[in-house]
C-alpha cells in the first residue's frame, strides 16, 4: 500500500447488549481498494460495515476517514454524506425507479437538471434506464438491487459499503450484476468494502480480503495472498482450501518439501525444517483424477486412492477420496461417467507441488502433531 489510507480503523470495539460483538485491532483501506469481508453468519461482517458507515457508534477505538477521527455525532453525520451503504434488500422508496435515485441525490442537495442528468447516468450504468418510470414495487430482485446500487453510486460516494448485496439473487442474475458492479467500481475507482459469505464473490470483485470469525479479523491482506496463503485452518477452509492435511517433513531441499501424510509422500513448495510438523491445504480445483499414474504429467504428486463419496454440487460433482488422507475435488458430469466414479472406485489423484500450500508450521520439531 503506497497511498495514504482513506479509512483507518484502530482498536475498534463494538458491544451489543453487554457482549462484545466486534473487535478489530487495525484495518486500513487505500483509495481504490475493494476489500471483501468474508466469514460465516454472525462473524461481525454487518456490524463492521455499519460501524464503517458511521451508523453504529463503537464502544471504544477510532475510525479515521482521511485522517479525521469520526468521534462525534456531528462528524459522523458529515461523514455519512461521503459514504453510502447498500444492503441485502434493496430497501427502495415507494416511488419510481427514477424517483428512488433522485431521492438520494435530493438528500445531497442535487436537484433540477443536474439531478436528472445524474439519475440518467447512474441508471444507464446499471442497465435500468428503460425502467426509470416503473414503480419500485414492481421490479424483479435483480432490478431492485440494480436500482439500489444506482441510487448509491449516483451520490458518487468516496466509500461504498455493500452488505451481501447479491445474496438474495438467483445465480445468473447475481453473476450479471457482479460483472457490472466490478466494471463500474473499476471505471469510477470507487473504494469499496463488500461483506459476503461467498469466497467466489469475493474473488471476483475484491483486491483485498479479510476473513472474520466471532467478531475478529483472522487474516487480512491482498486477495491472492489470503487465498493462497491462509494463515489458519479456518481461513483455509473458508477461502476454499478444503483439504487440510497435517504432515511431517521428511526431506527439505531448495524450497521443495517432501511430506509424509497417511502413509503417503507428497511434494510441496515451501520452507520448513526436517522433522517439523506442517499443515498444508489443497484446493479441490487443483486436484485432477485419472485411472492410472501418468508418467508424462508434470504433476509431481500422483497418489492412488479410493472414491468414498460423490455428491451432486451445482453443475459439478464433488468427489471425496481416501488416499490414506482425505482429499476432495470437483469433476464435470462427463468425467464422472467416463471414469465411472462411484464409491469404492480406485483412482489416482494428481496435483502439482505448487498446489500444496503450507498454512502453518509447528514450532521446531514439536512433539505434538497437527490435527
Amino acid at each position, binding site marked *: 500500500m503506497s497511498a495514504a489510507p482513506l479509512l483507518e480503523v484502530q482498536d475498534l470495539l463494538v458491544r451489543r447488549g453487554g457482549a462484545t460483538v466486534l473487535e478489530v485491532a487495525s484495518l486500513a483501506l487505500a483509495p481504490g481498494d475493494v476489500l471483501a469481508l468474508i466469514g460465516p453468519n454472525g462473524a461481525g461482517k454487518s456490524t463492521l460495515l*455499519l460501524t464503517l*458507515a458511521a*451508523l453504529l457508534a463503537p464502544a471504544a477505538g477510532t475510525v479515521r476517514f482521511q485522517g479525521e477521527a469520526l468521534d462525534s455525532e456531528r462528524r459522523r*453525520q458529515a461523514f*455519512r*454524506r461521503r*459514504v*453510502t*451503504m447498500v*444492503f441485502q*434488500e434493496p*430497501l427502495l*422508496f*415507494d*416511488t*419510481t425507479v427514477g*424517483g428512488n435515485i433522485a*431521492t*438520494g441525490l435530493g*438528500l*445531497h442537495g442535487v436537484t433540477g437538471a443536474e439531478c436528472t442528468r445524474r439519475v440518467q447516468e447512474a441508471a444507464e450504468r446499471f442497465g435500468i434506464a428503460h425502467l426509470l*418510470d*416503473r*414503480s*419500485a*414495487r414492481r421490479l424483479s430482485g435483480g432490478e431492485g438491487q440494480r436500482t439500489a446500487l444506482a*441510487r*448509491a453510486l449516483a*451520490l458518487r460516494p468516496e466509500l461504498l*459499503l455493500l452488505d451481501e448485496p447479491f445474496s438474495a439473487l438467483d445465480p445468473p442474475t447475481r453473476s450479471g450484476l457482479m460483472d457490472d458492479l466490478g466494471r463500474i467500481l473499476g471505471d469510477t475507482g470507487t473504494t469499496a468494502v463488500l461483506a459476503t459469505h461467498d469466497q467466489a464473490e469475493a474473488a471476483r470483485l475484491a483486491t483485498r480480503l479479510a476473513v472474520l470469525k466471532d467478531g475478529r479479523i483472522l487474516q487480512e491482506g491482498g486477495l491472492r495472498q489470503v487465498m493462497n496463503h491462509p494463515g489458519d485452518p479456518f481461513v483455509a477452509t473458508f477461502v476454499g482450501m478444503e483439504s487440510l492435511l497435517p504432515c511431517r517433513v521428511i526431506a527439505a531441499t531448495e524450497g521443495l518439501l517432501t511430506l509424509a501424510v497417511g502413509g503417503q509422500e507428497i511434494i510441496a513448495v515451501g520452507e520448513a525444517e526436517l522433522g517439523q510438523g506442517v499443515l498444508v491445504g489443497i484446493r479441490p480445483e487443483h486436484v485432477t483424477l485419472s485411472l492410472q499414474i501418468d508418467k508424462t504429467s508434470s504433476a509431481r504428486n500422483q497418489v492412488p486412492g479410493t472414491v468414498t463419496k460423490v455428491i451432486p454440487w451445482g453443475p459439478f460433482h464433488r468427489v471425496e477420496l481416501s488416499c490414506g488422507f482425505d482429499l476432495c475435488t470437483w469433476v464435470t458430469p462427463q468425467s464422472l461417467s467416463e471414469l465411472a466414479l462411484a464409491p469404492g472406485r480406485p483412482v489416482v489423484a494428481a496435483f502439482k507441488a505448487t498446489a500444496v500450500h503450507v498454512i502453518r508450521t509447528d514450532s521446531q520439531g514439536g512433539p505434538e502433531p497437527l490435527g
Partner: protein
Amino acid sequence: MDLIWEGLRQALALLLALDPEVLGITLLSLKVSGLATLISVVLGLGAAVAVALNEFPGKRVVIALMNTGMGLPPVVVGLFVTVLLWRNGPFGFLGILYTPAAIILAQAVIATPIIAGLGLAALQHLPPALRLQILSLGATRSQMIWLLLKEARLPLLAAVMAGFGGVISEVGASIMVGGNLKGSTRVLTTATVMETSRGNFEVAFALSFILLVLAFSVNALLTHLQQRGRPR
C-alpha cells in the same frame, strides 16, 4: 319507509335552503373535529415517531397503553374532561367548559391515541433497515423522519381518517363537555340526538345525512392525498 323518504326530502330542502342554523351546526362540526384531528395528528404522530425511533425501558408498556387508548370510550373522556374543567376543578380557571374549545380538547383526547397507535403500527411495519439505509444516503435525522413518514403515508393517512372518523361521529363527550348549546356548542351529532329524542325525525335524518356527506367528503379528500403520486 315513509319516514326515511320524508327525512331525505326535508334534508335536501334544508340543505338547498342553506338554513343558517343547520349551516352553522355543520361548520362548527367540521371546525371542531377538524381542529381536534389536526392537534391529534401533531401529538399522535409525534408520539408514534418518538416511540418507533427510540429504544427505552418500558417501551412495550407504552405501546400497550397507546393501543389501549385507541379504544377509549368517549363518555369516559367526557367525564374526565368535564371534571377537570369544572369550575372548581384543576383547570376550572380556564373557563372553557361548555365552549367549542372543550369539545376540541375532548375530541383531541379521543383521536390522539387512535392516530398514535395506528401511526406507530404503520412506522413499525417499515423494514427496520430502511432507517439505516436513509441515513447512509446522507440524510439528517429530520430528513430521515420525513422520508419514513412519506414511506408510510398510506397507513398513516388511514390513521388520520380513523381519527377524524372517530371524533366527527362521536356524541358522548361532545354533549358532556359542550352541553349542546344552541348557536355555540351544538354539533351535528348532538343535534341529531336532541332532534331524535324530540321526535323530529325529519330534521334528525337531515342532520345525519349531512354528517354522512361530511365524513365521506373529508375521507375522499384524504384518500385522494393518500393515493396521489403512487406509481402503478
